[in-house]
C-alpha cells in the first residue's frame, strides 16, 4: 500500500480504526438487543403493507399499534401478524391492518408449531419484498450501463426544495440539464420528528418536500426520463434520518433511490432523538441500504455548523471512523460510504485555506476507497454574495485538489434565500470553471512532507486518537460512546441516553423475538 500524499503512519491509522471499533462494538451489541416501532413498521412495509387510513395514518402504524397494545413490542411484529394471517384472520396484510384498526382482530404470540408456521410465512413474504429491492438494484446497474455514468468525479450534487413535488420535478430536471449528477430533494423541516411516513404525492412542505413513497416514485421516474435525455444516469438522494429512518430506507430501496443521508449520530445530536432509538434504527436502515446498493452520506459537516471547524476538526474525523465502523458492520462496502466533511473554517483565519486542504486530504487518505461527500461553506456565508462566491470557488478548488467524490454545490446566497434559478446557474458556473481550469491538478499537488498541511493532518489524526481513547476510557466514560454523546463531545450537544424523542418506541427484545427482515439481511452478509 502506498503511504499517500500525507505519509500517514499506517500503524497510527490502524490504531484509530481499532479504537473506533472498540467504541462502536458495544453500540452494535446494544442495537442487536433492542427493536423499535420503526424497525417493525419497516418490516411490514418490506412485506408490502402500504397506504394509509382516511386520516392519513399509514396502515403500518395502525397495525403495529394494535399489535403492540395486544402483545407488546418486544417479540417483534412478525410472529403475531403472520400468526393471525396463518389463522386466516384476514386474507392479506392490508385487510388484516384494516380489521385490526377496526378492533376485530386480537393478536397473540404463537408457540410451538404455530410459531414455526408464522415464522415461515413471515419470512416468505418479507423475502419477496427484499427480492423487489434486489430487482431495483439490478435495474439501476442496467440503467447505468445503458445511459452511462456521471462523466467525472466529483459528482455534482444539487438540491431542490420547493415543498411541492410537482414543482420539484421540473426544477430537478432543469438542474440535471445544467449539469447536476445527483439531485437531492430536501425534506420538509420537521419530518424527522414525525413518527409516521406521510402518504401519497405531497404539495405542501416547509423548506422542503415530504419524503413519501409516492414522491420517491414520481421523482425517480422523472430522473429516469432525464437520464435517457442526457445520456447519463442521474442519481436521486433523500434523507434516511429521524424517527422513521428504517421505513424511509426501505421505501428508498423499493423505489430505487441512489443515495441516502444516513448518519450514525445526527438524529441524536441535532434532532434530540433518543440515542438508543437512533442506533437501533440506524443499524437496520444501513443493512437495507447495503442490500439496495444505496450510497450513504454521513453528516459530519453538521458538527461544524455548531462547533469551531478548526478546534473540532478531530470530531469530524472521529465521527467518520465511527460511521465507517457502523457502516461496514451493517454490510456496506467502501464505494457506498459518502463520509461527510465540510469547508467551514472562518475565512478570516490566517491559512484557513491550507487548513481546509489539510482536513480534506486527511479524509481522502484515511478513506481512500470511499467517495466522500464534500459540503460547502454555510456558517461564514454572511449575505455578502460576492465574498460568498469567492469562498465557494475555494471550496470547489479543495474538492478538485483532494479528489472528493460527491460535491454539494455551494450557493453564494446561502443564509439569504432558498436558491434562485440564477443562483444555481452562477454556482454551477463556478464549479465548472474550477473543475475545468484545474483538470487533474491533484496529480501535481503534493504537500511538502513536513510542511504545514502534512503536519496539520497528522495533528488532527493525533487528536482523533486522543478523543477515541477518551471515549473508550472506562473512567471518563463508563458508558463508552453513549456517555461521550451525553457530555457534549460532538457538535457541543449534550444528549443523555435516557432522554430524547422516540424513547417510548424502543423495546428490549424478548427471547421469542423474531424479525425476518433482520434475519434475511444478516444471512446475506
Amino acid at each position: 500500500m502506498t503511504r499517500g500524499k500525507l505519509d500517514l503512519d499506517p500503524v497510527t491509522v490502524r490504531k484509530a480504526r481499532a479504537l473506533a471499533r472498540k467504541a462502536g462494538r458495544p453500540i452494535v451489541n446494544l442495537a442487536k438487543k433492542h427493536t423499535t416501532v420503526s424497525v417493525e413498521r419497516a418490516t411490514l412495509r418490506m412485506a408490502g403493507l402500504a397506504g394509509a387510513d382516511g386520516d392519513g395514518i399509514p396502515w403500518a402504524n395502525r397495525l403495529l399499534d394494535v399489535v403492540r397494545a395486544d402483545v407488546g413490542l418486544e417479540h417483534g411484529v412478525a410472529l403475531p401478524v403472520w400468526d393471525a394471517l396463518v389463522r386466516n384472520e384476514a386474507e392479506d396484510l392490508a385487510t388484516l391492518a384494516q380489521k385490526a384498526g377496526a378492533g376485530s382482530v386480537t393478536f397473540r404470540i404463537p408457540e410451538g408449531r404455530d410459531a414455526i408456521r408464522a415464522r415461515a410465512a413471515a419470512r416468505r413474504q418479507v423475502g419477496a419484498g427484499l427480492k423487489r429491492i434486489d430487482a431495483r438494484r439490478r435495474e439501476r446497474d442496467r440503467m447505468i450501463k445503458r445511459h452511462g455514468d456521471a462523466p467525472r468525479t466529483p459528482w455534482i450534487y444539487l438540491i431542490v426544495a420547493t415543498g411541492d413535488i410537482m414543482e420539484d420535478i421540473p426544477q430537478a430536471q432543469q438542474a440535471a440539464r445544467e449539469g447536476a449528477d445527483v439531485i437531492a430533494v430536501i425534506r420538509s423541516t420537521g419530518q424527522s420528528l414525525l413518527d409516521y411516513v406521510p402518504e401519497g404525492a405531497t404539495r405542501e412542505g416547509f423548506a422542503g418536500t415530504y419524503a413519501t413513497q409516492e414522491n420517491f416514485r414520481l421523482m425517480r421516474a422523472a430522473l429516469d426520463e432525464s437520464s435517457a435525455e442526457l445520456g447519463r444516469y442521474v442519481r436521486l438522494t433523500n434523507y434516511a434520518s429521524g424517527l422513521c429512518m428504517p421505513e424511509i430506507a426501505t421505501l428508498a430501496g423499493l423505489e430505487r433511490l441512489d443515495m441516502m443521508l444516513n448518519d450514525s449520530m445526527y438524529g441524536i445530536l441535532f434532532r434530540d432523538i433518543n440515542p438508543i432509538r437512533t442506533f437501533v434504527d440506524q443499524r437496520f436502515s444501513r443493512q437495507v441500504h447495503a442490500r439496495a446498493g444505496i450510497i450513504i452520506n454521513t453528516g459530519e459537516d453538521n458538527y461544524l455548523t455548531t462547533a469551531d471547524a478548526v478546534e473540532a476538526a478531530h470530531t469530524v474525523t472521529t465521527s467518520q471512523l465511527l460511521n465507517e465502523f457502523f457502516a461496514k458492520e451493517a454490510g456496506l462496502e467502501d464505494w457506498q460510504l459518502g463520509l461527510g466533511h465540510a469547508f467551514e473554517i472562518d475565512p478570516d483565519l490566517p491559512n484557513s485555506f491550507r487548513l481546509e486542504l489539510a482536513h480534506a486530504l486527511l479524509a481522502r487518505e484515511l478513506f481512500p476507497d470511499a467517495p466522500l461527500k464534500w459540503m460547502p461553506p454555510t456558517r461564514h456565508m454572511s449575505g455578502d454574495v460576492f465574498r460568498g462566491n469567492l469562498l465557494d470557488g475555494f471550496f470547489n478548488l479543495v474538492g478538485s485538489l483532494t479528489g472528493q467524490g460527491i460535491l454539494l454545490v455551494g450557493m453564494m446566497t446561502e443564509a439569504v434565500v432558498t436558491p434562485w434559478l440564477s443562483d444555481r446557474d452562477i454556482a454551477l458556473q463556478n464549479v465548472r470553471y474550477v473543475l475545468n481550469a484545474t483538470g487533474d491538478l491533484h496529480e501535481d499537488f503534493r504537500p511538502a512532507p513536513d510542511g504545514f498541511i502534512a503536519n496539520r493532518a497528522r495533528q488532527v489524526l493525533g487528536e482523533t486518537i486522543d478523543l477515541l481513547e477518551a471515549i473508550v476510557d472506562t473512567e471518563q466514560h463508563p458508558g463508552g460512546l453513549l456517555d461521550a454523546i451525553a457530555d457534549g463531545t460532538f457538535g457541543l450537544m449534550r444528549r443523555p441516553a435516557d432522554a430524547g424523542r422516540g424513547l417510548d418506541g424502543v423495546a428490549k427484545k424478548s427471547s421469542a423475538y423474531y424479525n425476518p427482515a433482520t434475519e434475511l439481511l444478516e444471512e446475506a452478509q
Partner: protein
Amino acid sequence: MTIVRPYGDTTGDGMVQLSFTLPVPHSKVADGAAVQLANKMGMDPALVVHSKPMGPDFTFFVVYGRVNHLVDTSKVEVVERDYPLLTPKEVNAAVKRGLRRRLVVVGGCIGTDAHTVGIDAIMNIKGFAGEKGLEYYRELKVVNLGAQVSVPQLVERARAEKADAVLVSQVVTQRDAHLLNTREMSAAFREAYPADRRPLLVVGGPRFDETMARELGVDRVFGRGTTPGEVASFIVHRIAPPSKGVAA
C-alpha cells in the same frame, strides 16, 4: 447633510448595480426588457453589462446605471439602542446589586428550526464577534435548550427554571415561519404567566425587523449582527438597571 444618493466613483453620481432574471429567452428583446425594467426602477441611463441565457426560457442580467432617487437619512426609522452598553463586569455587578441572585436566561430555537447558530452565538461561552457569550457571565444562569424546542417545552422549562428572560432564535423564514413561531411563543407566555410576572421575551434572527417587537408581542427583537454584550446589556437594563438599583 441628510440628502444622499448612491456613490459609484464620484460624489453624487447615483450609480448602482442590479442583477435579476427575466423569464424570456436570451435575445435583443430580452436585453431591451431588462433596460425597461431598470428604467422603471429609476435607473437612467441603465447599461446591461451582462446578459446570459439560463436554459432556453430564461435570461440573467447584470445592469449598471444611475438612479434618480434621493434618500433623506433624517427620515430613516431604525431602532436605536436605548440602553447603555455594559461590560460583562458591569453586567455581573448590576445583577448582584439589583437581584441579589443569579439572573436566569432560558433560550432555544423554537418550531422546526434546527439552526442553532444564532442562539449559540449569543449563549455559548464561545460567543460571537470576539465577545464571549452569556455563559461567560458569572451572574447569569444560562439554560440553552438547543434546536427544535416546542413552545410548550420552552414555557415549561422557563417556569421550572424561574427564568427572568427567555431568548428565542429563528433562522428559517420560509413562509414567515419565524413570525408565526414568535407570535405563538409570546401568546403562550402571556397565557402561562400573569402580566407582571412574565419573563422578558427576546427574539433574534437574521431576517427579523427590529421595529416589530410590539407587533410580535415580545420585549425586543434583535437583527443580524447582534452581539452577546448587547443582549446582556438589554436584559440587565430591563431587569436590574445598574444605576437605579436602589429605587427599583
